[in-house]
């Protein structure tokens, strides 16, 4: 009787660093994740701004001039866009994982997104009213 021969398997294909470009869902996911880079950079720049204000107030006006530069304004607009994208995707995901319950009504992810976006608008107005209006 002949012996059963073992044939080699094809190993798992390695995922290259560009795996996220192969599929629209993966690309949206990676863009969503990369918003974190802009959030982190903004925070670091803001901490630097507070440090300059506290430690070297004489140089603070130079930093304010930097804020007015086209590069900084461009970066800020992009960062705001990405931060809002993070917020909206966060609200949707949270709406899936922990839907809001009001009595017998449980929100869908889209409803959660709408409610949280409205809350974001209200919180933003309250902050502007508390700290900036008329000052």
């Amino acid at each position, binding site marked *: 009787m002949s012996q059963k021969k073992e044939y080699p398997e094809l190993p798992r294909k390695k995922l*290259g*660093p560009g795996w*996220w470009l192969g599929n629209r869902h993966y690309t949206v996911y*990676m863009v969503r*994740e*990369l918003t*974190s*880079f*802009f*959030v*982190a*950079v*903004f*925070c*670091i720049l*803001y*901490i630097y*701004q*507070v*440090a300059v*204000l*506290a*430690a070297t107030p004489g140089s*603070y006006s130079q930093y*304010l001039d930097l*804020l*007015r530069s086209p590069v*900084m*304004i461009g970066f*800020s*607009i992009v*960062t*705001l866009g990405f*931060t*809002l994208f*993070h*917020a909206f995707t*966060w*609200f949707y995901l949270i709406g899936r994982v922990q839907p809001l319950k009001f009595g017998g009504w449980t929100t869908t992810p889209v409803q959660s997104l709408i409610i*949280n976006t409205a*809350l*974001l608008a209200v*919180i*933003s107005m309250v*902050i*502007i009213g*508390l*700290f*900036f*209006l008329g*000052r």
Partner: protein
Amino acid sequence: MSVAARLHALLWGVFSLGGFIAAFLLPVLIYVNNIAYPLGLWPVTSRDPTSLLVTDQIIGSFFVFVAIAGSLFHGVFRFTATLGELGLKNQVERIVSVGYALIAVGILALLYYLLALNPSFVNMVLHILGVR
């Protein structure tokens, strides 16, 4: 749960809280400080928004601390995980360590400078503690 997993679970909880903070508090700060003020858009203020917020203003300083510390934690934590998915898997441990160091230094620096900008609050606390 292993020790590493317990710590990670705790840090994930903080990361998750940071996600809420970045979503609800960061957009208005970016808009007012980095877009509205330099371009002279609403709400127009007499001074730059940051010095209005934090100079001898403990509530504003608290808002800045929560918004920036929470968002920094969330952003760095998430970005270091993303780098692993972009092909830097072998360097992930080193990247994560650098990330946590950046978070720690950033939050401590922010706390230090905010307290430096709020001498009345610091004096009040020291007075309560009986140090001054």
